[in-house]
């Protein structure tokens, strides 16, 4: 179809402290034709589980302090990023990680 967007499927790995938004699931399959960037993935999950994105992204649209995202794209391992506009490819794996150095 002319002008159609490719359908992307992304695997999001949910850290334990955010699994209240994923009904306890450690991974979420997120898919859609509008899934272009990292932020699109977060927004897609947020539509299902309101509040999820706000735990990761502040009201300036930036990743919160002490948080980094990683994208793994075969054949490479996870690469860290804070760029929410990073474009994704089909079958990418996305990770959310936080620094756990405080008591």
């Amino acid at each position, binding site marked *: 179809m002319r002008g159609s967007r490719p359908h992307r499927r992304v695997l999001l790995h949910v850290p334990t*402290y*955010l699994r209240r938004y994923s009904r306890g699931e450690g991974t979420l399959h997120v898919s859609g034709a509008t899934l272009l960037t990292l932020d699109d993935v977060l927004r897609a999950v947020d539509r299902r589980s*309101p*509040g999820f994105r*706000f*735990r*990761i992204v*502040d*009201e*300036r649209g930036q990743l*919160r*302090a*002490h*948080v980094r995202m990683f994208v793994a794209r075969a054949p490479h391992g996870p690469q860290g990023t804070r760029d929410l506009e990073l474009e994704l490819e089909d079958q990418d794996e996305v990770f959310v990680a*936080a*620094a*756990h150095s*405080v008591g």
Partner: protein
Amino acid sequence: MSAPRPKHTLQVPRPKRGAVTLLIGTRKGAFALRSEAERKEWTVSAPWFLGSTVHHIVRDPRVGATTLAAARTVHHGPTIFRSEDKGKTWDEARRPPTFDAPLSGTAARVVNHTFWLTPGHPLEPGVWYAGTSPQGLFKSRDDGKTWKPVNGLNQHPELERWTGDEQDGPPDGPQLHSILVDPRDPRHLYVGLSQGGVFESADGGGSWGPLNRGCAADFLPSGPRDPEREFGHDPHCVTLAPSNPDRLWQQNRCGVYLMDREVGTWARVGANLPADIGDIGFPIVVSPFDPDMAWVFPMDGSDDWPRTAPGGSPAVWRTSDCGASWERQDRGLPKDNAWWTVKRQCLTQDRHDPLGLYLGTTSGEIWGSINGGRSWKCLARHLPHVYSVSVAGVTA
């Protein structure tokens, strides 16, 4: 120094009877502490939100009795949890307090945490107010589901002049606290800015003015010589006398103060506390039955501000004459080697007669008195650092 008496009729509430439930916010979650009818035996619940910091947890005293908890994990931002069944189940605010995009020329601000929760006026069911760090005021009209900024304050053209900037703030961040709603008028509000002072609105938050004259700010260069300074102060806790909403009490960084609103200036009534105790502290509670009676918990504010009980000997101090005199109340509390203090949201009362008082400590204990402070008993131990204690309800 004694303060002038109010000229209007007091509205003394009827005392309550029965079992008390306290809600405890801590650095690592929230708890409920429940008594039986005589308030002698207490049971602590399993934690809610274990691992999250709960700065304030409050049950709405109006119809509906929603409970809100202002929570934050260290990494994953602030939120507000809601329960409509006294904590059996919780959901999350769809839109927690967040600052609007800034006006041009000002820096964008990010809510670090919601610090204070106040239910609205009885004539406005479903209305709540929240105070945040950085300092911001927010309002919900739907029982805490969504929140909007009160930009009459958050974007006030004088705000930076009143409060300074982030560089001026304390390491934990400045907080907006002590959100007070006049029980006679839902549009009459007071707030405390820990970096700025006490401010008042008569139009529901559309416009604000400082209310700090008479209050010291001796940490500022002009402090001791400037009793008429309008802003820049550091109130720790401000409260209205429940039986006289034109009387305000304030525990400030620089002392204990009282104001009758028609007078309009603060009088330092804490100066009558013993010199070796001082009148520095965080919380203040006023009797629901007598606007002349209040309790404070002084802390060591000397030198580098250890912020522990003076000499390691904790005590509540009570005045029954507007601060003209003070009585030490420490029976049952540790006599020495108790190096803790009580934060600003950690001293409360249950409106019983005789009055029950409850305090939560930085060392994770809850202490209670069922005789107006004359004697104290430890009700719970081994909790995390306590950030707030509120009375959720009294059940006959």
